[in-house]
């Protein structure tokens, strides 16, 4: 009896959110047909010519499709991994700091690069990586030869991954810090009494306490497995590093500059979505099966 009343309340609560979702997410989704069309704006979504899987075929028939997919995957996956690991470390370190003032300042400051656009950062990074930039000066102090990092296929991806991690780790840290406040304080108190070391405390209390958030973040980031960071690469790459740095989005963007290739862009988007969905479903079942843990 009680239960049914509660369920009714739950449905009621969900109404506003789901009405908005239907209006602004589900209804427009019918536009996904564009992926199967040679879309011409003048003919509209329903009047354009249906060409079946041509857009997809084209995507895979590109002479460079292999290197483009490899670049995209390698960069995206590396970024996801770094984005998971670094913020956890930083959050744990922050957790060890007692001074509230210090903690607040550091947290605020590391969140700031998140607001810098890549266009601005691009200039700064280019300067730092230039032949007489700060990085090469350090290289030379240690007796190395200066390197043009952004014009080198050996270095380009590393720079991309490193700078992206630097820009975004503050964001993840905020989430983990919030998760850490949810951990029951009494656990720490009893650990203290039992004489646990700092490492033991982190390992047995803090980490398990935020583990579900870590897993959740990992799963959510699977949705980005084909998003290698369009804006960042666009501002930092040049034709010399196409070999290691040209990704799906930059390629499609270059296609679209002159004549908007909406069909192709939608097809790429759809492909990404399908892949992400599969990965998310997979991780959902794996987590349920092996850890008996429900992510969502």
């Amino acid at each position, binding site marked *: 009896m009680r239960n049914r009343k*509660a369920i009714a*309340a739950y449905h009621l609560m*969900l109404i506003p959110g*789901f009405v908005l979702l239907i209006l602004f997410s589900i209804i427009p989704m019918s536009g996904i047909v564009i992926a199967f069309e040679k879309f011409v704006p003048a003919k509209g979504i329903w009047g354009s010519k249906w060409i079946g899987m041509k857009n997809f075929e084209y995507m895979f028939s590109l002479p460079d499709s292999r290197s483009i997919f490899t670049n995209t995957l390698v960069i995206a996956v590396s970024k996801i991994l770094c984005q998971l690991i670094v913020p956890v470390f930083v959050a744990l370190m922050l957790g060890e700091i007692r001074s509230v003032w210090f903690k607040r300042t550091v947290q605020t400051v590391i969140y700031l690069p998140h607001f810098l656009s890549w266009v601005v950062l691009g200039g700064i990074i280019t300067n730092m990586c230039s032949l007489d930039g700060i990085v090469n000066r350090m290289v030379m102090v240690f007796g190395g030869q200066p390197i043009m990092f952004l014009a080198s296929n050996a270095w380009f991806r590393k720079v991309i991954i490193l700078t992206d991690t630097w820009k975004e780790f503050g964001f993840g840290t905020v*989430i983990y810090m919030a998760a850490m406040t*949810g951990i029951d304080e009494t656990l720490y108190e009893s650990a203290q009494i039992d004489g646990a070391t700092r490492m033991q405390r982190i390992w047995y209390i803090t980490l398990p306490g935020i583990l*579900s958030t870590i897993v959740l973040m990992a799963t959510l980031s699977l949705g980005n497995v084909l998003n290698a960071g369009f804006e960042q690469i666009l501002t930092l790459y040049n034709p010399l590093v196409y070999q290691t740095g040209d990704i799906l989005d930059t390629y499609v963007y270059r296609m679209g500059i002159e004549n908007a290739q909406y069909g192709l862009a*939608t097809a790429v988007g759809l492909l990404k979505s399908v892949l992400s969905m599969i990965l998310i479903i997979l991780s959902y079942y794996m987590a349920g099966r092996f850890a008996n843990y429900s992510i969502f």
Partner: protein
Amino acid sequence: MTHHRSRFLTALRMNWWIALILLLLAFSCLLPILNTVAISLSNQAYAATGRVGLIPVEFTLSSYEKLMAEATFGRAFLISVLRVLLGVALGMLTTILTAYPLSKSTRAFPLRNAYMWFLVFTMIFNAGTIPWYMQIRNLGLLNTLWALVLPCAVSSYNIILMMNFFRGIPREIEEAAIMDGAGAWRVLLQVYLPLSLPSLATIALFILVQHWNNFYDGLILMNKPSNYPLQTYIYQLTVRIDPSTISDAETLREALKVSGLTLNASKLVVSMVPVMVVYPFLQRYFVKGLTLGAVKG
């Protein structure tokens, strides 16, 4: 005693290391920003030669004056403030109301999984700009404040995050409340929300930042510059020097006072302002143990 002391020393030493690493990290994050601020306050001619470091050269506020020069600035600012207020209110409402039922187990709420997957689906799939635009147009929202608020009011990402935080709250507390005769709404309002202040602060911050900094939807959904929110207004404020029409020294001198570099830098500073103002304030809620301790006490 000695044992105790050495542990204390280890802890101290380790804290030093940690503090040092964190300081370095923070410093690396601060440098580009200080550089940006310095450029925004420098004379364009010097900024253009790439010689501005952390201190402004030939201090000038002209790029900020340029930002605020037009009557549209005030309007855009107002639209942005309205948008943030409305957006955060609406966003928090939908996030809380959607996340709470979804945080229940399937036993307590049988249809939960169906809703959940629906939500995940909408998070992953979208059909691009054109259909989205057409729908907003068909609803007659183009060129209104609602176009900036309604379509992005539901963030699946935030909902899932919030739901996860809700799940971390011990079941016993809820059960005790139900024993006292509280219904679902009262449990949410009187038990869950007070216990979730840190996560609510986090989500509010995310929504605020998102609304404050989103310029793209203003660009596409607003038909007139006079309806732009602040970030869209700022985005379009480039110094377009059209060499074929610059005829006199006065125009050129004006144009040279501010130009791409300094103006862009000042745009960035503006985009960071609300976070600098709001974040330290919200962070009160992150301080460990505060909320749980209060409830326990």
